[in-house]
């Protein structure tokens, strides 16, 4: 009955409380979005570097090397000679080395030359068809297959470089031989083929040789010698070829510590640690996220004050009602309860709508991130511990805001109130 009365009181004069609820909704929404984005973002980033101790690539920004070769969200730093990379790939310290050659794209999805180890590293199985074996056979990431509704047996031409609008390579046609299982990692948004496919695509231009030279883009695989037969497929043993990066997993962990220096001193390449670079990235993001969080807590504080003012004002108006309830047999505690429940109801309403709004915001963020970075967020995930703390915090704000009005209701002098009415 008290709760019902509290509920009716809230909606009787909704303008008194609407500001408080709006403020509360916005702060809860911001915090919910931040919590989810931060957690899922970190999760996605760290999930992708599992099993990669170091990345070897052309000299330049180590963060760029990691972003381009592990996450595929940045341009590559340049190319490295496959022959000199091979020396290090076959080093006894190395447990597994996965070479990557960046090639073309198909409708904005990157076509990546690599080996079968790449799929294995991301725990992607071949859900349909088989693994690529010959040149121009490709395996599609699960999301691409779904989005472009492609299936095994389909064929397509690639566009040059990163941009979907790039020059279309019509010399060779890619044939889909397999589709990978979903992993929730970058591989879902990649088209995988053999490294020689990438070489052949860019090496065998023949008539368009001059155009080939003018590509000039960093990180693009070009072939230095073009003296091979047009009708014979390029193989992995082709000499003098270039690749973009190598993902390294070490058997001997000493290598992780010593290689960055050794490689930098002895070669024109660099190695970067994904864990280190990603941490650096997070700490950069962290400042922004923290600032937003402080802002959201500030809004929550204001909403608490707003609830307090609303309750305090209505208490003045409703003094007579409270006295009347006491005359009708209500205990002091019941009036205190009434005030507290009203405040808590506002907070719960605020929390529920805030949580929903936060997730709507996440869907919007997810849609734009999907387009720009091939990264999507899951709005249906609930982080019980963090969102639970947020809920308790909201309830806490409600209790504190209601404290003084509730005490006032408890101490109400019935006789005086009614005599002065």
């Amino acid at each position: 009955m008290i709760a019902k009365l509290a509920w009716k009181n809230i909606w009787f004069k909704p303008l008194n409380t609407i500001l408080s609820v709006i403020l509360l909704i916005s702060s809860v929404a911001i915090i919910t979005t931040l919590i989810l984005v931060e957690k899922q973002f970190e999760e996605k980033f760290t999930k992708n570097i599992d099993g990669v101790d170091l990345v070897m690539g052309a000299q330049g920004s180590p963060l760029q090397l990691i972003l381009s070769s592990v996450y595929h969200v940045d341009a590559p730093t340049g190319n490295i000679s496959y022959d000199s990379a091979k020396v290090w790939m076959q080093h006894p310290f190395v447990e597994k080395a996965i070479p990557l050659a960046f090639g073309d794209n198909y409708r904005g999805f990157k076509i990546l030359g690599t080996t079968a180890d790449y799929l294995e590293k991301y725990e992607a199985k071949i859900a349909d068809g088989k693994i690529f074996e010959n040149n121009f056979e490709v395996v599609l990431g699960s999301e691409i297959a779904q989005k472009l509704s492609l299936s095994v047996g389909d064929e397509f031409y690639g566009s040059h470089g990163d941009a979907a609008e790039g020059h279309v390579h019509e010399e060779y046609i890619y044939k889909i031989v397999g589709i990978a299982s979903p992993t929730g990692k970058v591989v879902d948004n990649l088209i995988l083929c053999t490294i020689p496919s990438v070489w052949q695509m860019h090496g065998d231009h023949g008539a368009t040789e001059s155009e080939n030279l003018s590509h000039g883009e960093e990180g693009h695989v070009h072939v230095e010698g073009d003296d091979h037969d047009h009708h014979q497929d390029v193989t992995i043993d082709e000499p003098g070829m270039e690749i973009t990066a190598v993902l390294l997993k070490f058997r001997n962990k000493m290598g992780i510590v010593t290689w960055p220096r050794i490689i930098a001193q002895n070669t024109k390449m660099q190695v970067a640690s994904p864990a280190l670079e990603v941490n650096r990235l997070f700490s950069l993001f962290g400042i922004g996220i923290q600032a937003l969080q402080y802002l959201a807590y500030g809004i929550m504080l204001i909403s608490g004050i707003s609830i307090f003012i609303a309750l305090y004002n209505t208490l003045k108006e409703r003094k007579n009602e409270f006295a009347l309830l006491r005359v009708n047999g209500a205990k002091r505690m019941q009036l205190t309860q009434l005030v507290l429940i009203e405040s808590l109801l506002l907070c719960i309403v605020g929390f529920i709508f805030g949580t929903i709004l936060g997730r709507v915001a996440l869907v919007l963020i997810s849609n734009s991130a999907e387009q720009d970075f091939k990264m999507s967020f899951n709005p249906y995930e609930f982080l019980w511990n963090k969102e639970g703390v947020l809920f308790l915090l909201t309830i806490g704000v409600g209790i504190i805001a209601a404290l003084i009005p509730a005490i006032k209701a408890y101490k109400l002098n019935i006789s005086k109130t009614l005599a002065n009415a």
Partner: protein
Amino acid sequence: MISTNKITFSYNKDQVFHMPDLYCEAGSTILITGDSGKGKTTYLHILGGLLKPTSGAIEIDKENMLALSEKKLDKFRGKNIGIVFQKSHFVSALTVLENLEMASWLATGKKNSARAKKLLEQLDVANQANKLPSQLSIGQQQRVSIARALINEPKVLLADEPTSSLDDKNAEKVIELLTSLSKEYKAALVIVTHDSRIKEKFINKITLI
């Protein structure tokens, strides 16, 4: 049945009110009159258990109300005392019927909707049951507050200037309803008033001086 014995009350040391003793049987009526500032409303609040007197005793249905703890007094008040105020107060967010139900729930823990409807019927405001109190006329509001005062079948019905804001016709009707219903529900009716229109209607009178 209500009776008082040597009640005194003071807001401060200089002014002490000596309230005359009163005795009222169930079903009968007593009038408390007197000029403004003589403590009429104070007396009514003391009788209603809203104000604690400095000394004295109040017996309602053979129970000394002043000996009760505060919590028990709240319950006792809700159950045994019905009060009609000069100006009607309602919980404005609740409808007329819900106001009555709330009064019965607070006192007894049960919503007595049947009696609430019956009372509204008797007071000729049944068709207003689902309206908000603010939508009613003052006369109707006064009748609803009588209904609310009677919802728990109290032993004592207190009325504080119940007619002061009403015209002659409505005042007469309210007085008639109060007396007839207090008889029906076997409540002792105590009316505090300075309204000359109703003074002559009653024999039982106490004048505060």
